[in-house]
């Protein structure tokens, strides 16, 4: 890849607008995510963070504006085409498949890297079996990364919320994406579990993945994010490195209601 391509942001949002009837969920937001970074997406409830992730993954199409990934426009693309480009995600309200074991969930996430045609797999050709076994090993290794391999054969819906979140991360990693979108990956987790997620995110980044994560815990944002984008009412409040963003008076007002209350944000860290 040329230097120019490398220095260009991996993901660019250009005045993205999304309205639902009369509600403006995202109101002309622009930001960029650098290749190889952990980018925090933060903002109060209802700020439009999940909507942004839905727009990037093609579940919604923007009312106007542009979303570019490696220079390609995503606005009109179907979700499966966007996944094929190398963007996968997790969900704020865990959406695992009912009736599937933990391993099956992650295998499903490996659909794009299965290395074998659906028909060959139906016929059960030796090459298809070998590819299946390789994919299975890959899925198990991903489960090991999130410390869930010992639960591989259990029904995912019988596990705890935190465990399900980790399975979702493994599932999203199945297709070896370039950009991973995590929607509140640490929600409902204690400090120790949340820190483990933060460390995992760093390991993944060091292995070349770019991560955009919605995170409400400011401590985690300052500790684990390289950059961040702060939104409120679907608009950009601040973007840049986390410490500077969180010190921004507009950001503090959005979170705490008063510009002067600077001490409390310190206390939260």
């Amino acid at each position, binding site marked *: 890849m040329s230097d120019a391509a490398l220095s260009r942001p991996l993901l660019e949002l250009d005045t993205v607008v999304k309205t639902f009837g009369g509600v403006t969920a995202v109101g002309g937001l622009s930001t960029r995510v650098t290749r190889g970074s952990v980018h925090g997406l933060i903002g109060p409830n209802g700020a439009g963070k999940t909507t942004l992730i839905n727009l990037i*993954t*093609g*579940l919604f199409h923007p009312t106007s504006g542009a979303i570019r990934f490696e220079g390609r426009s995503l606005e009109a693309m*179907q*979700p*499966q085409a*966007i*996944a*094929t480009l190398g963007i*996968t*995600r997790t*969900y704020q309200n865990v*959406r695992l*498949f*009912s*009736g*599937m*074991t933990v391993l*099956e969930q992650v*295998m*499903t*996430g490996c*659909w*794009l890297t*299965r290395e*074998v045609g*659906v028909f060959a*797999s*139906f*016929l*059960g050709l030796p090459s*298809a079996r070998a590819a*299946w076994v390789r994919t299975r090993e890959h899925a198990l290794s991903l489960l090991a990364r999130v410390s869930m391999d010992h639960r591989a054969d*259990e*029904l995912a819906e*019988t596990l705890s919320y935190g465990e399900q979140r980790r399975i979702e991360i493994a*599932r*999203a990693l*199945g*297709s070896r994406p370039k950009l991973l979108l995590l929607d509140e990956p640490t929600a409902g987790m204690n400090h120790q579990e949340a820190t483990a997620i933060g460390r995992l995110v760093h390991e993944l980044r060091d292995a070349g993945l770019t991560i955009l994560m919605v995170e409400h815990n400011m401590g985690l944002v300052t500790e684990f994010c390289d950059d961040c984008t702060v939104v409120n009412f679907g608009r950009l409040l601040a973007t840049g490195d986390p410490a500077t963003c969180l010190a921004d008076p507009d950001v503090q007002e959005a979170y705490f209601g008063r510009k002067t209350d600077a001490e409390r944000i310190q206390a939260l860290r």
Partner: protein
Amino acid sequence: METLLDLWAAYGSTIAFAMVNALFALSTYAVLSTGVLSFTTVVFAAVGGFLAAQSVAHLGIGLWPAFALAGIGGAVAGSVVAAAFLKLDSHWMALASLALVLITRVTVLNTPLLTGGVNGLVVPMSVPMGDLVILLALVAAVFWRLHRSWYGLAARAVREDAAVASTMGIPPRGIQFTAFVISGAVGGIGGAALAFTLQFISPETYFIGMAFTMIASTVLGGSFHWFGPIVGAAVFTALPVTMQSVLPAIEDVAKGVVLLVIMIFLPRGLVDPRAVGLRRAARRRVSAEEGTDV
């Protein structure tokens, strides 16, 4: 002796009908297992049935070529239906498929040259029980392979949450299209099997009664594993016969009550792999609690 033979005759035809109904239930399951409720199996069965009946009568082909032709005809019909219907939301889809069943009947009635119209068609071929068993075994083997392949995994994902599946690169419409082609082929083959079992077909053969039977069989047996529809069809076909000998007067009521009871207490059907996993998890929890007590 005579009554014994009568019994065997009744029993034998029940088994044959159970197997034919299993084909229809599997055809319905093919699309239901990707999250689409459709009654179009009836349409595919009509296509396969009349195609097979006419080709054995006029082209002189044998039983198995007729099954193959019926399967191909059904698959073509399935792809046409999929192309037209898959744009619709799921509940409209179900309604549209029902409308298509009505349209099919009118079409069959009004094309007497092809279908015999209101008078129906005598089918100059019958299917031996052994061939029917082989046919069902072959179709079941296809579903077994589908279930254990990448298609099966993708189908389950699409059924449970099509949006999530699509963000993992699985094309929901593509999977559902394939499901319709499979449903069409199996429905067509089932239609031919029914024609060769009844040896007479008319517009009434492929109509609402069949739609009810196949949906009831699938829901009863369970639509989360291919074995469910086969079990469901067996139970649903045997039920009226059993009821008739036990409670002849209230057969329909009893049939309805038994169905309701099963659906209320086993809403996911008789064959449910998920229930096994849930029971295992419950046992694990119990033993974990006992472990901490000690």
